[in-house]
């Protein structure tokens, strides 16, 4: 169960449409909010990011996401919340983070999505290693 929020490699657009399609039987939903993180080809000095390699302290990460998810359900009038984060190599242009919230109304879906994204970035032990095109690397720091 420790991989319930984690996916090896990039998140495919097809996974996203499949997730959306699964909610079409839930006719109490009026609004979905989706956040997607995509790996940017950032430049540092003369080096350009080619990929990020993600690792996580999975046992703790899963516990912490469970808690954050419960907080979201307590705070916002949510119908559903789904969270996926990549592990391993994700190339630039590929997706590494997928947060999907649904509610009767747009405000709750939106606010819960923002809450989940921000809290997960802040509180969940995931570590990104930016690998440059020249195969050097540096450890990513969230701003």
């Amino acid at each position, binding site marked *: 169960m420790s991989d319930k929020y984690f996916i090896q490699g990039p998140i495919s657009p097809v996974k996203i449409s499949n997730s959306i399609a699964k909610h079409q039987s839930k006719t109490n939903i009026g609004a979905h909010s989706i956040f997607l993180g995509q790996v940017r080809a950032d430049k540092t000095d003369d080096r350009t990011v080619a990929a990020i390699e993600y*690792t*996580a*302290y999975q046992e*703790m990460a899963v516990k912490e996401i469970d808690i954050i998810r419960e907080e979201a359900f307590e705070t916002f009038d949510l119908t559903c919340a789904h969270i996926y984060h990549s592990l391993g190599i994700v190339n630039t242009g590929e997706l590494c983070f997928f947060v999907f919230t649904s509610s009767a109304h747009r405000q709750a879906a939106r606010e819960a999505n923002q809450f989940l994204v921000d809290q997960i*970035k802040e509180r*969940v*032990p995931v*570590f990104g290693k930016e690998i440059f095109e020249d195969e050097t690397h540096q*450890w990513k720091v*969230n701003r």
Partner: protein
Amino acid sequence: MMTITIKYFGVIAEETGKDEEILRLDVQEYDLETLKKDCISKYKITDTQSIQIAINQTIGTSGVLKSGDEVAFLPPFSGG
């Protein structure tokens, strides 16, 4: 006899050269502060300011370690 599992992540794992080690200590008491100091000096961990330490997957607990505890050295999080 005390057994402590230590896990290292991100840049810290890079500096220690390992993801995990198991300490078997013939001591009566071992507290987190001592463990932290020992590891930092042993592996010459550079960014000591930003390290967070979790005991049994929880950050912010401190004090005396007990046998079987899992201690994790965590650099700044950068998921998302």
